[in-house]
């Protein structure tokens, strides 16, 4: 039998349904694959082999009876940000110790309800704070892609969902859950030649997702194809009473949008995304994307989002402020690690100094500062007003077009340590992705080409609120036109 780990999610689900192979066979194939390649790539921090085979046997029994859900028997990887009942879930932070949640996140429960099989928990930046996976307590994930210069430099898969991206790109799962606060699904997807989508804020429940910045956090998948991403998104999203910001609206059938084409659609090209220092080949790829959409019958319009350059600075006030509030719960009293020292306050301070990594500490302090007395108006309130301005920019352009086309990132994957010296330089990685989080909009990244170094580059489609359908339509056309079939050599 051909290598089952190389199948798309859709092909695997169809093959399982047709009994071409069993869930136990494909699950075992993935466990073997993980055994072989994970030690070099560090994508999984927990492998739940026994649980996976148990779930696979149950799926096989259901399939034998002609029953089963939409993902019956399909092995998936789960970002460590999602709480999984009885299985260590720490957002890759030391402060959570060996925390094993007594409950299941809604997003993962939705996947199990449709018969999916869990292979394990995927590495990520600590509390999703990072763009290179270098802030994980469990060490960085390695990108399966290498530059073609023969130097064998280890590259980052991006972050924070670096484990999810590497696991899918190196055939260690059919698809993976991920989460996106400022670009954490789309940037790693772009860096590894995968598809990633952040749905509209409120589409996927945040219940059981370890919180970073609650007004920005949104779950989504990383997958091999646009169709796989649509299938995963349909199942991950749901109305949920356990999340007060969950949208109580039906989840559309997005898989049918993937091949619907873009004839008659108006696609905006925002001129402010042409930033200084952007490599010429990314600019060229963007123009290529425009040409592909024109050929497919879309009309291209030049649009302006004048407050784009303020999105990242606004994000670096809003996100740390929300994080400083959310992460106040890690006090070493009710769960996680406690490092006792002196009195209660000193125990808190030691627990948090030992438990949080450098980047998390930096952001918590920024958050505490911008929320502190005397600075609230100048920083936090100003940032929330700028955020509104950015959202208004989008409202205005969406009166003249249906979706926007941009590059996903200002560069291809970079080497470890290359941007670790300067926090601001690292933050600039999210320059094209963060705007969709601030405005709550859906956005997809689709692999479009290799650069001259042999590394994947992605194009991003940003849609109107609740219009994931346009992201999938445009994404489907880009995927077909680009015919990106390159694979990393492992």
């Amino acid at each position, binding site marked *: 039998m051909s290598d089952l780990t190389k199948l798309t999610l859709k092909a695997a689900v169809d093959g399982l349904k047709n009994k071409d192979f069993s869930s136990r066979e494909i699950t075992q194939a993935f466990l073997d694959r993980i055994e072989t390649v994970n030690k070099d790539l560090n994508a999984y921090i927990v492998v739940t082999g026994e649980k996976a085979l148990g779930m696979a046997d149950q799926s096989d029994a259901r399939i034998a009876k002609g029953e089963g859900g939409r993902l019956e028997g399909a092995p998936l990887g789960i970002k460590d940000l999602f709480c999984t009942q009885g299985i260590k879930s720490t957002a890759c932070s030391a402060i959570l110790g060996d925390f094993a949640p007594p409950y299941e996140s809604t997003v993962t429960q939705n996947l199990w309800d449709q018969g999916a099989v869990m292979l394990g928990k995927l590495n990520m930046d600590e509390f999703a704070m990072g763009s290179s996976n270098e802030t994980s307590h469990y060490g960085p994930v390695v990108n399966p892609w290498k530059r073609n210069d023969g130097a064998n430099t280890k590259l980052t898969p991006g972050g924070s969902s670096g484990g999810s991206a590497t696991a899918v790109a190196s055939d260690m799962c059919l698809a993976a859950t991920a989460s996106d606060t400022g670009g954490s699904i789309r940037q790693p997807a772009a860096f590894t030649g995968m598809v990633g989508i952040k749905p509209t804020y*409120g589409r996927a429940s945040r219940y059981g997702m370890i919180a970073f910045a609650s007004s920005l956090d949104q779950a989504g998948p990383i997958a091999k194809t646009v169709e796989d991403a649509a299938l995963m998104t349909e199942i991950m999203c749901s109305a949920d*009473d356990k999340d007060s910001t969950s949208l109580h609206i039906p989840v559309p059938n997005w898989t049918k949008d993937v091949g619907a084409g873009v004839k008659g659609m108006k696609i905006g090209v925002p001129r402010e995304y042409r930033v200084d220092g952007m490599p010429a080949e990314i600019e060229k790829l963007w123009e290529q994307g425009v040409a592909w959409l024109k050929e497919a019958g879309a009309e291209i319009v030049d649009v302006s989002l004048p407050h784009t350059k303020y999105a990242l600075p606004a994000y670096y006030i809003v996100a740390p402020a929300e994080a400083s509030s959310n992460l106040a719960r890690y006090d070493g009293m009710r769960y996680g690690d406690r490092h006792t020292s002196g009195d209660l306050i000193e125990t808190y*301070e030691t627990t948090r100094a030992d438990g949080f990594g450098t980047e998390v500490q930096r952001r918590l302090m920024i958050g505490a500062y911008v929320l502190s007395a005397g600075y609230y108006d100048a920083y936090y309130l100003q940032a929330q007003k700028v955020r*509104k301005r950015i959202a208004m920019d989008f409202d205005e352009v969406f009166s003249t077009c249906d979706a926007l086309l941009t590059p996903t990132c200002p560069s291809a994957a970079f080497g470890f340590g290359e941007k670790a010296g300067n926090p601001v330089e690292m933050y600039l990685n999210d320059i094209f992705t963060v705007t969709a989080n601030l405005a709550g909009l859906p956005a997809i990244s689709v692999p479009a080409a290799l650069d001259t170094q042999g590394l994947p580059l992605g194009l991003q489609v940003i849609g109107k609120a609740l219009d994931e359908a346009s992201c999938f339509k445009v994404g489907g056309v880009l995927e077909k036109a680009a015919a990106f079939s390159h694979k990393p050599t492992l």
Partner: protein
Amino acid sequence: MSVDKDTVRKVARLSRIKLPEERVEPMTEELNSILGWIEQLAEVDVEGIEPMTSAVELSMPMREDVVTDGNIQDKILANAPRSEDGFFVVPKVVE
């Protein structure tokens, strides 16, 4: 606006993060490089703009005021660093 070392010590205290004295100077520099970059927000004209509080307009959903969960003491204590007789054990809070 930039922060000095005393402010950094104060913010560390507010964040309940022990900051060793040798980390104060580098942390001050790191925070100032970030704050200096954030500063550009001040130039945006926000006259008459309401601060954004939610990404998607929605009214807070209401539910029946009934107990839907509970009697799960074991689950709640399962991950506690220290517990005894159904209680969390914490350092002395009141002298």
